[in-house]
């Protein structure tokens, strides 16, 4: 449905987005995930038609919507796409119903059809009672629902979201994740969702593009990101808790504990928290750490210690001794090894 071919966007001499290619089928939920400044919002704005790619091609279905080489870029309205802004961008001088109806008016829908669409969108998000209120008079969560309703009322084939939940508190965020998925399922449209919150990506996406410095580090299904991270960046960015990246030097853990399985590599070895165990005393394949914090989670404990300035987290069934000294035991083999550039070796 959406396919990108070598999309690049430069501002002056620097590339905000470099050489991005991927494609997702109709009805999928694509999450662009990455830290701030990684180029994910620029990507979204190019998909929306608010920015033009410097080079590369972009297709929605069979329609070529942008081609950097020939300077083609369909205006937003001709892409059959809707966008939910981080700020919601509700028009403050129109009521809730007015906000939802305006895009339909612009699209020249007849009055009857407009009324039906507005009602349908409001019902889907449970905001019928707010129809005559102004955006300034309703809460942040309600504004978010209005923004969603406004986006879906014209029935776009592509729904774009720019960090839509970042202005909400934690409880509302969980609730709205569910609402979003419901809307996505009900409309069958293809969604592209920008966030820096890996939990949102893991819970909502069918496809995730992890972005860093304007490039895609990995494009995969959420579970694949966890199982087979393509780079040290991805390994350290996703997962709750994220996997431990332990420095290795010439086949030695921390540069001091030789291990034939590391095969003389230097860089980082990925060890998941659930693979590290807590030992009662020093022994084979153990290393010492200073206790940093213990987080209770789902009946178990995430125990974090600091070794040489690096945080190492293990999952444990019992709380560590309060002495402040910890002994972590390494697993038989690391889950993955990355070289100094962060590229995966094995």
């Amino acid at each position, binding site marked *: 449905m959406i396919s990108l071919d070598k999309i690049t966007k430069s501002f002056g001499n620097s590339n905000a987005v470099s050489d991005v290619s991927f494609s997702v089928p109709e009805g999928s939920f694509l999450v662009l995930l990455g830290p701030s400044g990684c180029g994910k919002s620029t990507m979204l704005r190019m998909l929306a038609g*608010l920015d033009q790619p410097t080079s590369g091609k972009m297709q929605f279905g069979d329609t070529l919507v942008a081609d950097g080489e020939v300077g083609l870029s369909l*205006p937003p*309205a001709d892409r059959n796409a809707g966008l939910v802004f981080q700020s919601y961008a509700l028009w403050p*001088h129109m009521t809730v119903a007015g906000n939802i109806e305006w*895009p339909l008016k612009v699209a020249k829908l007849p009055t009857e059809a407009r009324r039906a669409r507005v009602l349908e969108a409001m019902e889907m998000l449970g905001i019928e009672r707010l129809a005559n209120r102004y955006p300034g008079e309703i809460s942040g969560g309600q504004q978010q629902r209005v923004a969603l309703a*406004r986006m879906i009322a014209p029935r776009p084939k592509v729904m774009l979201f720019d960090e839509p939940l970042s202005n909400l508190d934690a409880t509302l965020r969980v609730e709205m994740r569910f609402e979003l998925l419901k809307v996505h399922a009900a409309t069958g449209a293809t969604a592209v969702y920008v966030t820096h919150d890996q939990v949102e990506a893991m819970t909502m996406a069918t496809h995730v593009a992890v972005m860093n410095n304007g490039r895609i580090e990995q494009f995969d299904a959420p579970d694949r990101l966890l199982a087979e991270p393509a780079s040290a960046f991805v390994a350290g960015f996703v997962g709750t808790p994220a996997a431990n990246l332990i420095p290795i030097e010439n086949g030695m853990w921390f540069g001091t504990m030789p291990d034939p399985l590391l095969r003389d590599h230097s860089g980082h070895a990925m060890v998941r928290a659930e693979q590290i165990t807590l030992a009662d005393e020093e022994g084979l394949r153990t290393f010492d750490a200073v206790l940093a914090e213990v987080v209770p989670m789902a009946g178990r404990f995430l125990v974090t210690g600091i070794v040489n300035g690096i945080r190492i987290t293990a999952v444990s069934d019992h709380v560590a001794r309060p002495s402040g000294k910890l002994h972590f035991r390494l697993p038989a083999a690391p889950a993955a090894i990355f070289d100094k550039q962060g590229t995966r070796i094995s």
Partner: protein
Amino acid sequence: MTTLLGPIGSALNKRGLTLAMALVLFALVAAPLATILVQTLYPSSAAWGDVLASRLSNNLFVRPTINTMIIGLGVAAGCVLLGGFLAWLVVMTDIPGRPAIAFMATLPFMIPSFATALAWGTVFRNGRVGGGGGLLEGLGFAVPDWLSWGMTPTIVVLIAHYYALAFTVIAAALATVNGDLVEAAQMTGASRKRILFGIVLPVVTPAIIAGGSLAFAGAVSNFAAPALLGLPVRMQTLSTRLFGMIEIGQTERGYVLAILLIGISAIFLGLGNRMLSGRRSFATIGGKGAKPRRFALGNARLPLTMAAWVICILTTILPILLLVAASLAPSSLALFSDWTLHYWIGDSNPAFARGQPGIFHNPQLLSALTTTLILGASVALAANIIGILIAVALTRQKVPIMSNLVSQLSFLPMLLPGIAFAAAYIALYGAPIGPLPALYGTKLLLALALTAAMLPFAVQTGRATVSQISGDIDEAARMTGAGFFRRLGAITLPLAARGLAAGLLITFVNVIGDLAITILLYTPTSPLLAVLSYSYASDGFHQFANAVTLVILIISMLATGAATLLRGRRRQSFT
């Protein structure tokens, strides 16, 4: 909250400060207004009849009111158009030099309106009322009366003065709509025109109304422009009429006109407020996407850039340059030839200007200069001290009714035309009150009136300062156990000092550029610079008037520049 000010707070009881401030405001604001009303009704209300329904009322009331309304509406419309146009260019388009244009567009308000009016005269004056023509006549053009005197020049000069207000207000509103709100509309496929009329204008409407009504209120109460440009051809407005009445001793009629002027100004500000109420909560949620999108001007870029700069230069630099030239040229017909410093430093010479010496040999100027500076400084100081005290009283002590009263009274002077306010001061303090002697003709009366007039601004500055005293920053210092004076010296003052100093300077500039209040209340023995300039101009000594105005301008510019520097650096380091 109760120990916020530590020892000082406990020294004053819980309501003391609010009560004290209410008394101060009563004496400075409420009492003069009440007196002016009472004096027109008691012992006789004949003045109302004279003004509103008599053979005189056409001249006293009807014509001046019509002129005032035309000026007010014309200036409001012009300011919204001009200020809105510049605001649109600066906020929404890719016009080059945006920061410079934005800075220039706020300057005209710092140039006293009589300076702009005098500059107008240097170019467009014709010889009809004596005193020689202006630059255009010198070049051989016959300047028609309508362009030299009366309504048109008054409106143009006032627009050039007040559009800065509309610009500031509208630019701020446009900045909030630009970005996401416009992009959300673009997503729907709406045309540029539809976005302008469907989204941008409605969101900015409250600001347009606010800017327009501020300009209206300013224009109807302005005295300098209609007096300099209208009086020579007997065009009267309410403010010039009011001045005339009091000058010839018909004070009751003057007071009636003052009340009517306050009424007109209040009605329009009230209407503006009415239209704004309920729409004020146009707060939008911020997001990283809210970066402004610049609309590309394309081919129109060059002409529009030129237009913007022409507007800015015509209303700021050019009037000043014209005044400089006109203060040096012996003949008003040839502004740029035979320049002489005679009008500045020359000795009395019968061949020049009927023997008038240059302004720096005029003993009146030197005394006016010192009087103006001392008055400006003391009023700025007094107004800001009262302003801070009021701000403290309002934030610390919530006394039912009283707090609300203090807040309302402290902002009331903003709605009052200066000349009407001055008339009210004559009404109250012109005669002895019990053991207190009459203050009419003393500098104290002038200082009191100016202090009251500057209060709204001073209270604003005070609130900004107090919010720093009572905010998290101060609480963080209290947690360390630092006492009130320690915190004042180490935290509050360093943070608030620049803002306070800038506030003081701006008040000072407003005082020394004021003509509406001072023209009624100055003391004949030691007039102020603005009054001196006005009397030179009305006597036809334009070079001297221009020179004195330039002295005021130079002081204003130095003070404004200092204030801008203080504010600018503060903004950089604390936000």
